[in-house]
């Protein structure tokens, strides 16, 4: 077990290094430059002063080594746009994104498990077809559209939910207020995710039901519901966990759009601003934190998979 943990940790570090290197190359290969230098009124003197302050007057190789060197001391530099230490800025936003994404994930699982189990038992049945159409629609429509329509109907027309933000500004902290702000963005994120998970679960359940070990269980006289939870769900859990693992990076990325539409102060939105403004240190810090989040999440899911399927535990 310990050997496995160490192996996974080394693997995780390698992934992080690959991500930061790729990000560094990509952000510098992209055309354009830092928005802080975009003011056409800047005199050459001011331009040079800014470049030297931001370290942009050094060669790319030096900038790359410097960044990784400082990383070892836990210093990821200052954001060009925010003029604040990047790591603190990103970590300040991370909880907001995690709150949104976790809520969406929980909601999606709560929807997907019963629906997936139901349609998986009767593939091709009428309920399966209806769910199939709904699913397809949910996956085909981009989340920002759901977001805008949701805002226009629920916030602008009926005024039952707030249009954006995480809380009503200037009011004392209030759980109900926070929850009300969470409903729309979490729903927008959860919808396509639930659709995706239902698809995986449906197929997994259908496959398990056809598998050979069920007739003996039935023959032992186990009730239908017991078979479903003890045998079918347990077997279908593995593909479900894999599917969730695959969705985590997409979820964090998809949150950028949702966060922008709902003015949610999350990390995804910060990432969009950083990329558009060519805020190199901030982009690097976000890439690192997102990659670390995904690595940790996948590691956690791996442990869960081991619990769900003993074969995985014993394989290594």
């Amino acid at each position: 077990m310990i050997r496995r943990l160490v192996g996974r940790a080394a693997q995780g570090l390698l992934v992080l290094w690959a991500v930061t290197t790729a990000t560094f190359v990509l952000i510098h290969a992209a055309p354009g430059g830092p928005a802080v230098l975009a003011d056409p009124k800047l005199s050459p003197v001011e331009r040079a002063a800014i470049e030297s302050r931001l370290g942009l007057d050094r060669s790319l190789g030096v900038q790359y080594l410097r960044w990784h060197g400082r990383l070892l001391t836990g210093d990821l530099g200052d954001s060009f746009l925010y003029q604040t230490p990047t790591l603190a800025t990103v970590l300040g936003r991370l909880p907001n994104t995690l709150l949104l994404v976790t809520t969406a994930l929980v909601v999606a699982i709560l929807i997907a498990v019963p629906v997936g189990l139901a349609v998986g038992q009767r593939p091709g049945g009428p309920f399966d077809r209806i769910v199939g159409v709904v699913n397809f629609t949910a996956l085909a429509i981009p989340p920002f559209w759901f977001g805008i329509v949701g805002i226009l109907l629920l916030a602008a027309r009926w005024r039952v939910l707030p249009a954006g933000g995480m809380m009503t500004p200037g009011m004392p902290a209030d759980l109900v207020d926070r929850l009300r702000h969470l409903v729309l963005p979490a729903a927008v994120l959860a919808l396509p995710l639930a659709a995706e998970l239902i698809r995986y679960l449906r197929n997994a359940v259908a496959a398990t039901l056809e598998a050979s070990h069920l007739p003996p269980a039935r023959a032992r006289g186990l009730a239908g519901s017991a078979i479903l939870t003890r045998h079918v769900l347990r077997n279908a859990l593995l593909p479900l966990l894999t599917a969730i693992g695959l969705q985590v990076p997409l979820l964090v990325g998809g949150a950028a759009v949702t966060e922008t539409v709902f003015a949610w102060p999350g990390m995804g939105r910060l990432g969009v601003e950083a990329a558009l403004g060519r805020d190199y240190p901030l982009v690097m810090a976000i890439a690192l934190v997102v990659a670390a989040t995904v690595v940790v999440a996948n590691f956690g899911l791996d442990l869960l998979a081991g619990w769900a399927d003993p074969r995985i535990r014993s394989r290594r």
Partner: protein
Amino acid sequence: MTLLALAGCGRQAPPSDTLRLAIINDPIMNAPLSPDIGSVLINKIIFPGLMRPGDSTTTEPDLAASFEVSTNEREYTFALRPGVVWHDGTAFTSRDVKFTFDQILDPKSGTLQWSDFSIIDSVTTPDSLTVKFWLRSPFAPFLTLLGHNAGIIPAHAFQGRIADAVEFNRSRPIGTGPFQVAESVAGSYVVLRANPRYHGSPPRLSRIIVKIVPDVNAQVAQMLAGELDLVTLEPANLSGLGNDPDLRVDQVSVPQHYYVGFNQGIPRFRSPLVRRALTLAVDRQAIIDGVMKGSADYPQGTIPVALGEYYAADLPRIPYDTTAALALFAEAGWRRGQDGLLRDASGQAFGFTLLVDKGNPSREQAAVAVQQQLRAIGVSVTINTMEFASLVRDYVVPRRHEAYLIWWNTPLDPDQFSYYGTAQSNNDVLYSNRRADSLLARGRASLDPAVRRAAYHEFQAVEAEDPPVLLLYYPRELQVRRATLHGLPALGIRDALRHTEKFYFAAGGR
């Protein structure tokens, strides 16, 4: 289900003494730094300057009580308003003014106003309530610039570089304005509350909440949802507002001119005939109607109508006239060939690449309109859309551009010497006209409004004969506000926010 049950309850109308406005990014609350529009706007509220805009062409004392200009017009003496205190209770003195301008004049400080004030030779403080500015030469826009972005910051709040004062800049700024920061939540909002010790008339609102809403569609939605009271929008966003009876749209002339600039370092753009022809060949009314949905004014020269008396209203309008354009092209040696393209004697076709920044629908559409209209008279235009930063850094600064669609956003002063004076710092189109040089120099050097008016009117007449750029339009700012919100001066939002103590909600509430 529980979430949905929560949805219906708890909605509480905010008191109507709170104004909610939106900016698109987290602000840096330090006036001389202000690197982006969000910061510029909130800093107008927190940090007054020595002066502030009165109406479109006047400026009035703010932190200054009065001022005197020496007879050689190079020495400005400001008597500061006595009894002004910073938001933390410390007395405001001449030391703060000197400190602020020391920062502005030091390129290493990270402020972006050096080019506005490089005319300053030195700043001295004879006593705690007197500041003297010594200018290198007479400079008419000086007072207007003092009321533009040069908000004063407190000397006592900083040790070391002001750009490193993260705590001050991000969450606890100290100004002298009518509203002071009470709470700042990164990425979400800044709450400002009325300053009971404000030096001007007492603020009528009790709070201003500045929300950070990066997406313009989301701003529209929040206006409709009653969660914002004032935003500025692009014409393309207006249709989204529908006809909500609670909202009003005010169109305000602002000191901006949008244009296509031609690099006059390139021989074929050097001829005034060619630039006049290009201007005649573009149907600018169609762009104003189609792209700007009518919310712009038809342009004359580079001095926009927002500058009031300095705008030469009596000059003949330059029409859309392709026949006249072709005649001028012919005079300059460009004639239409067999293929319909304009060619010179050697057979070379007239064409250019037009750079435009990505992401702004009005500008991208205007570029396409220019392309189509010029194609109709045989000029081939290739559009190259790119990010603004890249347009400036990779093309304009190294002068690698042929033509670009861009704009200037100026203080409320007609001085354009740095934009259109020969070899001046912001003259990116490399325009050079002796007569224009001397008129622009005269206009910036005289403090007499009559002399200035005459100089700028004549400058606009020169521009009609030798246009520095192809003017497209003077945009009007679309200010969308809650119908009950009053007290805004008829100025662009940047300047109007210098007067927030006058804002109020009329009875009737929301």
